[in-house]
């Protein structure tokens, strides 16, 4: 009973703090959503019996790295923007706490827009080429698209050129990649 009471008290504190620091809450909840989606992808990959052990050795770390990279980019872009917005608002209107929090909130959203919609897609396009080459170098057989929903480019092998149909197959494997997913 004491544990439950303690958990409720901690929950109450977190709730109050989240309401008072809306910018931080929006930033953290977006990052948490991203982390949970990546976790689900990774678990789906690990538990998929139709993907070989050797392939999993490559695909699972890649999936984890991909998720970590996305969140790191989001944080690296958003935190400085939030700090900057907070400083500027504090300088202009030091007594208006609500306005300062508003500036932080808008900065959290702006950071999400820049990182998830501009930086991540551009970097993903570049990194996918490297990943494809690495898989080919290790001579791994990519799993068929209908059983793998990860983020590599399983259809783009030298025997399967970059055609429209291959791309359609490929996009079917990209169920949840890119942007803030949930």
């Amino acid at each position, binding site marked *: 009973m004491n544990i439950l009471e303690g958990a*409720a*008290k901690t*929950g*109450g*504190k977190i*709730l*109050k703090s*989240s*309401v008072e620091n*809306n*910018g931080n*809450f*929006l930033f953290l*909840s*977006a990052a*948490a*959503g991203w982390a*949970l*989606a990546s976790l*689900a992808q990774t678990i789906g990959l690990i538990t998929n019996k139709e993907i070989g052990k050797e392939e999993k050795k490559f695909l699972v770390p890649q999936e984890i790295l991909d998720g970590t990279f996305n969140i790191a980019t989001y944080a690296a872009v958003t935190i400085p923007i939030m700090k900057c917005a907070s400083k500027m*608002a504090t300088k*202009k*209107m030091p007594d*208006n706490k*609500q*306005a*300062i*929090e*508003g*500036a932080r*909130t*808008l900065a*959290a*959203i702006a950071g*999400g*827009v820049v990182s*998830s*919609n*501009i930086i991540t*897609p*551009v970097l993903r*396009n570049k990194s996918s*080429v490297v990943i494809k080459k690495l898989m080919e170098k290790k001579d791994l057989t990519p799993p068929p698209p209908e059983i793998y*929903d990860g983020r590599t480019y399983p259809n783009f092998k030298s025997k399967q050129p*970059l*055609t*429209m149909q291959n*791309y*359609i197959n490929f*996009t*079917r494997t*990209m*169920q*949840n990649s*890119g*942007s*803030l*997913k*949930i």
Partner: protein
Amino acid sequence: MKVSPLNNYTSPNFKGISAGSILSKAANINSWQQRAALGLAAMTFQPMIDLTNKEVDKDTRIVSANRSFAKGLVGAATGIAIRGGCMKVIEKAFQNESFTEKIAKYTAENTTEEAINKSKDFIKNQGGAKKYAAVMGTIAALGVMLVTNFLIDAPVTNWLTNKMNERYEQNPDKDTTNTEAAK
């Protein structure tokens, strides 16, 4: 042009639009509104990035942009609906006196009756119920969306992408929205 004194009249309730008032309102933006902003940006920027990717051919660029647009639209629609729904449900729960009392107790500064009453007043009379519901609803929505991400987002995105691709395949030259930008 002369302006009559009557036209110069401003209501005493009108406080003007200032950066401070806009930012103060922005402090109340909740997660479904954040998701709407991100979704709108995703539907705009990501297809543009795909359409200007010179490493792939024109058809691939268009299919890729269709996919990005569909993903942005479906992800935003489910994200907004689920977040908004969870928030509404929790806001309704605050109509229950016992629930409100519990939240007031655990969010109070301390355990004194005065602090708890102050907390209750915040919930009932100062928009606290809506603010707490926004936070609690967001957390609940994250859990719900772990499931709906696979059950709704993925299949609906595929269906919409295929529909857009079929339309393009039937009329590749008439799809001016994409082809012009993809050149």
